[in-house]
């Protein structure tokens, strides 16, 4: 399913980055940082809520005067509880959305579609993630040191927010492809790269077919959080399916961290991985007209702890959005 948009633009954004990512290659590109997982709060969850609210306030202060009609938000914690508390704080009409780590692009698609309504002019979107709230949610207690395989990924702690608007800005939301859910039988919950790479390939192929484009149409094709090994699986599968080597492709999971750090394992993941890399690096390159056309492929692993314990395989999804600098 591919949709084209007219007159929908990516407005201003803000990124509040937490430990690990704020010391990596993107250091100095963030609006604000925090250096410890509590940041003065009593629990990790409170810390995540605080950073998300801070992120939105920074964004709103970048505008002299803005009237936000709808707030779309996502996070990784049960029943979107972080987003719910943020929404309770900011009091803007709110919808919580969830497609795991693919939600960033899901928000762009939903927000852009809402903007087609004549009464809606500005949509605020938030993605929030905190490494330790996610660890608690999906894995073992934080102080438990059971070894993880090298192909496991490390959730990016960051809150990112941005505005989608009808007012003309430098970057346009050109088109999007809504992905289907695929399942290639991967059961290891540490191996999300393998679980998601297949969806990324199949959504990319669908997008290229629907738009009748060649991969080289884009200056950059960027996947969300496949990590070091998922990236290779993606390239190999795409080559086997289409017979084309991608030379304009990268994965933000391996770009957000200093990959020499053994603790980050195969790289970044989580709903804030792709937006924090996109907004602190690629967005500015597009504004400076260094690159013009970018395809974002946000990938999500659709599991929870119950499904993993019940030995079900991990289905995955990928949504694509094409952004163009004007």
């Amino acid at each position, binding site marked *: 399913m591919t949709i084209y948009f007219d007159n929908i633009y990516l407005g201003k954004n803000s990124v509040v980055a937490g430990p690990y990512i704020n010391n990596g290659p993107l250091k100095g590109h963030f609006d604000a940082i925090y250096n410890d997982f509590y940041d003065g709060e*009593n*629990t990790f969850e409170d810390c995540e809520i605080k950073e998300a609210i801070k992120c939105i306030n920074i964004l709103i202060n970048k505008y002299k005067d803005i009237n936000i009609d709808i707030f779309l938000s996502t996070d990784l914690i049960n029943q979107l509880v972080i987003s719910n508390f943020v929404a309770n704080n900011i009091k803007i009409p709110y919808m919580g959305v969830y497609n795991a780590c693919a939600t960033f692009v899901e928000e762009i698609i939903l927000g852009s579609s809402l903007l087609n309504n004549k009464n809606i002019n500005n949509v605020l979107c938030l993605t929030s993630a905190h490494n330790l709230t996610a660890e*608690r949610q999906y894995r*073992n*207690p*934080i*102080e*438990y*040191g*059971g*070894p*993880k*395989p*090298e*192909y496991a990924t490390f959730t990016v702690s960051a809150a990112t927010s941005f505005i989608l608007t009808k007012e003309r800005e430098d970057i346009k939301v050109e088109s999007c492809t809504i992905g289907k859910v695929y399942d*290639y*039988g*991967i059961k290891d919950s540490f*191996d999300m790269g*393998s679980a998601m*790479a*297949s969806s990324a390939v199949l959504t990319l192929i669908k997008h290229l077919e629907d738009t009748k484009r060649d991969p080289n149409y884009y200056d950059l094709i960027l996947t969300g959080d496949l990590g070091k*090994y998922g990236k*290779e*699986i993606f390239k*190999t*599968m795409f080559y*086997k*399916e289409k017979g084309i080597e991608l030379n304009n492709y990268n994965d933000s999971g391996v770009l957000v961290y200093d990959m020499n750090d053994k603790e980050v394992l195969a790289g970044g993941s989580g709903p804030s991985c792709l937006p924090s890399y996109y907004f602190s690096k690629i967005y500015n390159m597009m504004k400076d007209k260094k690159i013009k056309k970018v395809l974002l492929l946000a990938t999500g692993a659709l599991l929870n702890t119950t499904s993993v314990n019940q030995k079900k395989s991990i289905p995955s999804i990928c949504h694509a959005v094409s952004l163009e600098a004007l």
Partner: protein
Amino acid sequence: MNIEEYKSITKKILPKTMTFKKLFLSFFVGGLMGVLAQLLIEFYSSFEEISMTEASSLMMVTFILISSLLTGLCVFDKLVTKFGAGLIVPITGFSHSTTSSALEYKKEGLVNGIGSNIFKLSGTVILYGIISAYVVAIIKIIIGG
């Protein structure tokens, strides 16, 4: 692309989780723990008023105390990540998983937090420890009379 073909791609690309170095480290550290335990038993039983059985209980309590304390000081998880089964299989692993669960759920209260979750990871050890003790005891009665 079918599932089999996809799995053969992932298998080729993913690194092996079990390496000789990791196996050797776990084996070596596990053995070292055994040696330490024996030394502790020898030490405790060198006191006249402590019997051999009491000495081995004291050794276990010492191991539990040290690993629990190091877990609280955020040191033990790094050691476990490095030495794997060498520290998880001995009683230090039991203590580590219990303490880490207690710390994790502290903020959710004494009853719904710590009380319900402290044996979240180590409950397996307790349950199957008791069951295997029963089985072994029954076998002993049947064979040994």
